[in-house]
């Protein structure tokens, strides 16, 4: 990424959309909308001081909503370019309220609330479409209850939990436990506030709230207005303190997730959603299970799949190593249902095809290997570029010319082409670059001769 960002021949236009395309191979005119970031790219140094001071918290999409970011933000810390962006929907200033803290904080004077979209016209000879894919949202699969059961998560969410720079610092805290901890924090804040109010009464009347309340309850609402309010406040306090104490007691039992189930083909190889195989998910489940084991050697993982498609250089060897050395077992079959057992443990019901019985087993966490779906805007983009999609919803190409789309001069690679892993994407990207270079150089040579 950094190499691209720093290359003298590459001009990066992040946060931009292609709006129109005219012309032909060797001579395209592309209209690009550079969306307003409300931050001047030339001035911003990416220092992040603005984000530190911004008072508005927003769920962090990069961390799959598991953490929070600010209304002025960069997508992730090493993002290229490091220019920050204001998310207009959540920015107080841009929503007409009083704020402007980021502007005051920015030493580079890069924040510009008046910035508007800019529309540019580019003149290019060839186009490479590498618009990637969308991770399938598993909520429509009723039997996996992704939205209902907090400890059923997607592989990408799990990836963020495993990441040292992720929302848990790499600890496999379960989402239900994280939610409980967040609830404890909120209740503690409330309890602290309530206690402060009580302290005022205690000071005034020289008696502890609990003693007062015991008496007050006994004497049935005896006393003046002040005492009435004190009792009321004490009741409010108890309403917070009691669940808080219960939650805290529960939280003492929280440990990191050690028993993991990985479910393959979630949305893939499934005629209800995507009929194709997403290719890379078997490997990322094995990888995630191995990393989890490396973090915590007591981790035991079960990977449920119809086939384990370890189809790449060194992949089968990696799969075997995961089984032998990282506490992974592989179970052939499709998980029928996930329910919730006690202690927020998801319970996985499946047919063990070796033993030929239906089993139910509790896990600390279930990780769904979700499909590689065509990206959401791919239809619009195909229309703008005048190129066709195939029956699977990816850009249409020919087997004999794998990176050429249906319009000369436009090439594609990576998961915009079809689901594939990193080495294949990198190889294809080089191939697409070669095709583009070839037509540019050939058209130059034609002009010259």
């Amino acid at each position: 990424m950094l190499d691209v960002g720093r290359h003298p021949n590459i001009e990066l236009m992040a946060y931009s959309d292609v709006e129109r395309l005219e012309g032909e191979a060797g001579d395209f005119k592309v209209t690009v909308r550079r969306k307003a970031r409300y931050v001047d790219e030339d001035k911003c140094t990416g220092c992040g001081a603005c984000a530190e001071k911004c008072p508005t918290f927003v769920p962090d999409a990069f961390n799959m909503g598991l953490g929070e970011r600010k209304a002025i933000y960069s997508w992730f810390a090493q993002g290229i370019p490091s220019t920050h962006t204001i998310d207009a929907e959540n920015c107080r200033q841009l929503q007409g309220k009083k704020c402007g803290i980021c502007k005051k904080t920015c030493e580079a004077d890069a924040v510009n609330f008046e910035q508007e979209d800019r529309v540019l016209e580019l003149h290019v000879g060839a186009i490479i479409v590498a618009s990637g894919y969308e991770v399938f949202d598993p909520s429509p699969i009723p039997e996996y209850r992704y939205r209902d059961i907090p400890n059923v998560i997607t592989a990408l969410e799990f990836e963020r939990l495993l990441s040292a720079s992720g929302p848990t610092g790499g600890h496999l805290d379960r989402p239900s436990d994280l939610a409980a901890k967040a609830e404890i924090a909120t209740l503690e804040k409330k309890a602290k506030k309530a206690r402060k109010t009580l302290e005022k009464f205690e000071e005034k009347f020289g008696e502890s709230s609990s003693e007062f309340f015991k008496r007050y309850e006994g004497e049935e609402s005896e006393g003046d207005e002040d005492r009435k309010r004190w009792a009321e406040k004490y009741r409010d306090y108890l309403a917070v303190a009691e669940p808080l104490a219960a939650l805290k007691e529960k939280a003492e039992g929280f440990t990191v997730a050690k028993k993991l189930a990985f479910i393959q083909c979630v949305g893939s190889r499934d005629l209800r959603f995507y009929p194709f195989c997403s290719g890379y998910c078997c490997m990322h489940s094995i990888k995630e299970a191995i990393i989890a084991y490396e973090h915590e050697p007591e981790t035991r993982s079960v990977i449920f799949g119809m086939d384990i498609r370890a189809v790449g250089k060194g992949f089968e060897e990696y799969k075997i190593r995961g089984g032998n050395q990282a506490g992974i077992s592989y179970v052939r079959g499709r998980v029928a249902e996930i329910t919730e057992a006690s202690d927020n443990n998801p319970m996985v019901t499946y047919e063990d095809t070796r033993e030929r019985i239906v089993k139910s087993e509790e896990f600390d966490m279930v990780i769904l290997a979700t499909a590689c779906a065509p990206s959401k805007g791919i239809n619009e983009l195909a229309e703008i570029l005048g190129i066709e999609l195939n029956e699977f919803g990816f850009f249409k190409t020919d087997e004999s010319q794998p990176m050429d789309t249906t319009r000369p001069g436009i090439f594609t690679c990576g998961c915009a082409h079809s689901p594939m892993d990193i080495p294949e994407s990198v190889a294809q990207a080089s191939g697409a670059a070669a095709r583009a270079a070839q037509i540019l150089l050939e058209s130059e040579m034609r002009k010259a001769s």
Partner: protein
Amino acid sequence: MAEKERGKKEASEETRIGVFICDCGSNIAGHLDCKAVTEYAAKLPDVVCAKENLYTCSEAGIAEIQKAIKEHKLNRVLVASCSPRTHQPLFQSSCAQAGMNPYLFEMANIRDQCSWVHMQEREEATEKAKDLVRMGVAKAAFLEPQKDIEASLIPRVLVIGGGVAGISAAESLAGMGLEVILVEKEDQLGGVLNQLHRLAPDGDGADERLSHLVDTVTSKSNVKIHTGSLVESVAGYIGNFEVAIRPKEGEALKEKVGCIVVAVGAVPLEPKGLYGYDGKTIITQAELEQQLKRGAFKANNVVMIQCVGARCPEREYCSRICCMTAVKNAMLIKEQNPEAQVHVLYRDMQMYGTKKERMLWDARGQGVRFDVYEVDQPPEVGGGVVKFEQPLIGEKREIPYDLVVLSTPLVAREEASMLSQLLRIPMDQNHFFMEAHAKLRPLDFATDGVFVCGSARYPATVEEARSQGLGVASRIATVLFKDKLVTSAIVAEINPETCVGCQGCMEMCPYGAIVYIREKNICEVNTILCKGCGCCAATCPSQSALLKGFKPQQLLAQIRAM
């Protein structure tokens, strides 16, 4: 510290070191006290500024280094962060952009070698990070400015192997205007494609595809094709290789090229001794493909067995293409004879991606039967039946056959070992060529100027081989479209005054970068071939071989600071 004094005197200007301590988010700062390390660094000798960054490699971090070089007139920069393997080039070039000689940059690895290995020992990790920074600073003071090495580039490419990958690379390179020499061992181009009938997943004819490919490459005037020829010798280095091509008859041909592509492909394993293979009623997919192609196929009960000689202790890898080959041929059999029974016994059906998975659905729809067998209970072939344990119903089943087809993996060609030696490129345990980086540099070798594509790297489909062949073309374009070659100055040098010509270094050099000059009785380093590994410097009994940037004086300063 007499040595240090001398070092300082040699430098014409005052040593001014800037130190940058990276938090790496929480990768470093989560496990040691970066602030304390920064404060400590600021007090070290010659250090004029020390800063902590959330990510020193981020744009903001780089900008900070560049700003400091100008503001503090830095002439040495030390970054304490991750591995120089991944990040030194970035930091070096950033320093150069700010006007500092890039060879005056030094790195201390306080992540991989400190925070990551001492996660539960915050105080000790902090102290160790201080040690590493102090050592780095001590070495930095003795660094010398260097100039990158430059060499010419010959804009011509040798492609070894005339299969899909090699042809695609050649065609694309020629299309970019480069001269290409394409060497094929056999008498005709095409490799394994010659033996195929139809291609998965769309059923295109292999012959049509091949003739199209061959037409395209032969129509290019700047491609010279040598069929029936072998590469006999290779000398030189990136930009300036000298190769000898030996035709079946006649004299070897000498050519000069700037880059070399290894596209020698792979061959299907002949399953001698497996499942009673006899080439008649028990054959391979490749042999079945021939029968189908010639119209000689006749069988009513076909059993295919997957993973024959693959995914086993001798050959652990999955060969990627055999499942789709089996499904493709099973469907062709069904197309020709819908009454035929076709059974596929498999371990995992590796029909990855969009169209291949659809083939699997379609094959099932056409009545091809798929049954799992477990690795510890392989099928048994004999007496006209294939017996196997059907784990789903827990019974032993018997399928009568008149033809058993064994799906065998693609294995590396025998010539691969020879090429590996000729070009000094590594192979993995399966004799497939090993790329520079499995994920990020799949088509490059660690040896500069040599590239790999197609099944020589790892089994690939026709489509994948083409993608990779084209990919190699652009990898080469990034080298040969430059005016000259610029490489790192961190190379060895041999002092001709003290060298006694013992040639101890020559034997140690893994890159063949040292030559013995008989007339002068000394050894010399070819600085383009030298990768700066330092084996020669460590071996030389007279300390005549030195590695720039790692001279004894520099390393001793680092060690003494410990």
